[in-house]
């Protein structure tokens, strides 16, 4: 991992098209501005991790429950 130290207002350029700016920082909270092309998705990491974990959980075998689902009159 590349680690850089920035002051408020300073920026980082990633590749040609992505720019990260430190807007402000206070205590242990940092406000980060991100400039990236629309087709690049930007998310808080824990959100992606959460979706990934739920997908993995959802892909587990449920053969024993298939019959129940097939007959479910909801």
């Amino acid at each position, binding site marked *: 991992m590349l680690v850089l130290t920035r002051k408020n207002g300073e920026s980082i350029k990633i590749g040609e098209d992505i720019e990260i700016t430190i807007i402000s920082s206070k205590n242990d909270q940092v406000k980060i501005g991100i400039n990236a092309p*629309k*087709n690049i*998705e930007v*998310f808080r990491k824990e*959100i*992606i991790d*959460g*979706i*990934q*974990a*739920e*997908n*993995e*959980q*959802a*892909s587990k*075998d*449920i*053969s*024993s*429950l*298939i019959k*129940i*689902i*097939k*007959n*479910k009159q*909801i």
Partner: protein
Amino acid sequence: MNIETKYHGAIEVLESETLNFKKGIPGFPMENEFVLLPLSDEDMFYVMQSVSTPDLAFVLTSPFNFFKEYDFHLEEPVVEELDLETEKDVMVFSILTVQDPFEKTTANLQAPIIINSKNNKAKQVILHNEQYNTKHPIIKKTGTKG
């Protein structure tokens, strides 16, 4: 083509029926092709089966069966990525995390599966909407539909 499936044995599917996930889905970035198979009568539940990995399949439902107020906005980049031309072409599904007992099953409303029915391009879209998370019980505790 013939494929092996997780819950449906060996079946034949048409190339034209396969859903195309250009970027896979979170956790499964290399899984680009799935088919939608029926699981129950009345179109309540489906299985989204990986074409290349027989052991990989997800149970899906239309979220509106259980969450009548479910509502969200698709951002422009997603509309472009799926080449969506009209709302009528949008199909929405939620991946269910099926539990034992079934009554504890939850739906991932935070990341619906969005399909363009015109070209079968698909994507699991992560919503920025903070009212949705990955574990919404489909059966409310009082035993009635949510």
